[in-house]
């Protein structure tokens, strides 16, 4: 379905280069970085990895975004916010929602992971470790408050579909864990 050329970004900076399917015009990056995920305001949609394409064609910016989860209610808002940010920068745009390739938590940038942790959401572990913690078999998720790994699962589903709820048994802090999606 998608066979986009290698990103122009490749030669400039590689912080968003998670897969070769991403194609973003570097002029647009500062604008798109200002758009944040409405559910997690500290995280830009660029660090989230949901913007797959942003190219200028005949003075119109064509943007392709991909949902984190199928039912993610933030997608409509993200689309509107992108449109508005581009408009403010003087661009008209067309936003399209694409499904393939499917989003994975691997596309969250290191900066995004840090922003999540600073905000109080533990960043996703590897798929294997994720399974262990969600079955409450191992204690591997670091408490975002005190850093202890003495944490346990409270609920496999947290405040949104993409998160699970954990609690620290040392400092007692309840916090969200961003589930691994691969």
């Amino acid at each position, binding site marked *: 379905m998608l066979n986009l050329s290698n990103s122009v970004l490749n030669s400039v900076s590689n912080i968003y280069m998670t897969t070769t399917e991403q194609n973003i015009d570097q002029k647009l990056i500062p604008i798109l970085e200002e758009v944040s995920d409405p559910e997690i305001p500290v995280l830009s949609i660029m660090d989230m990895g949901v913007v797959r394409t942003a190219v200028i064609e005949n003075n119109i910016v064509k943007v392709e975004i991909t949902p984190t989860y199928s*039912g993610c209610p933030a997608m409509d808002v993200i689309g509107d916010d992108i449109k508005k940010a581009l408009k403010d920068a003087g661009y008209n745009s067309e936003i399209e929602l694409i*499904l393939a390739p*499917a989003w994975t938590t691997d596309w969250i940038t290191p900066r995004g992971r840090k922003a999540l942790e600073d905000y109080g959401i533990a960043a996703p572990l590897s798929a294997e470790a994720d399974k262990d913690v969600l079955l409450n078999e191992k204690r591997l998720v670091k408490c975002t408050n005190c850093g202890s790994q003495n944490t346990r699962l*409270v609920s*496999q*589903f947290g405040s949104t579909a993409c998160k699970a*709820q954990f609690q620290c048994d040392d400092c007692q802090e309840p916090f969200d864990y961003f589930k691994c999606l691969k």
Partner: protein
Amino acid sequence: MKNENLYNYILGIADNSLILGQRMGELCGHGPSLETDIACTNISLDLFGQVRSYFQYASKIAGDNRSEDDIAMLRKEREYKNVLLVEQPNTDFAYTMARQFLFDVYHLAFLSELQKSTDLTLSAIANKCIKEVSYHERFSSDWVKRLGDGTEESKAKMQDAINYLWTYTDELFHQTEADKIMVSEGAGVDVTKLKEAYYKNVGDLLEVATLEIPESKYFQKGGKEGIHTEHLGYLLSDLQYMQRTYPNMEW
């Protein structure tokens, strides 16, 4: 319509998620605890999200003015193609989790095959959905184990739920006319081939949950042809209420 089989095929898949999503959504504010309430509604949200992808595609195939909302909200009972299993009511939490579990095991196997579809939109949707559904399956099988291997009371309730819902499992593996054509074109999943592994996986989990595998050989069917149990009508009157009362309303 150019491709009526594809259209019907998509509806056959999507209606399961729509109706199950509605059932799980009914628990919003009514779950047995805050965590389970949130989990059930999150599962509901995943399913509705999946349904949107399917119906957006179906709306494109239909090629007329039918929108995804029209397809979801404005059909008559007989036009819904979901299996009987997913329309069964939330009798108690054991029923809710047993229904979810019996569907999730099927859903995972189905999506795993649909990923190989020659229809690229369907395979992309399957690819996306399977990640979400694997979390659903983990959640529901965990509850079947906890209640089955729990107290005397929880075990009795879970066994009762499994026994009651068992009669609706066989229909998952019935082929419709649209199925047969889609399978022959390489775009559809041959559900008859999923049956053996399904009963094996379900049986293994029930064993871990210290529950009995029902022996009944009597199975209900009809949902795929639009012949539903009495429960669907009530569900639809809830689901469709706003659109029927205030046609074309938006918010």
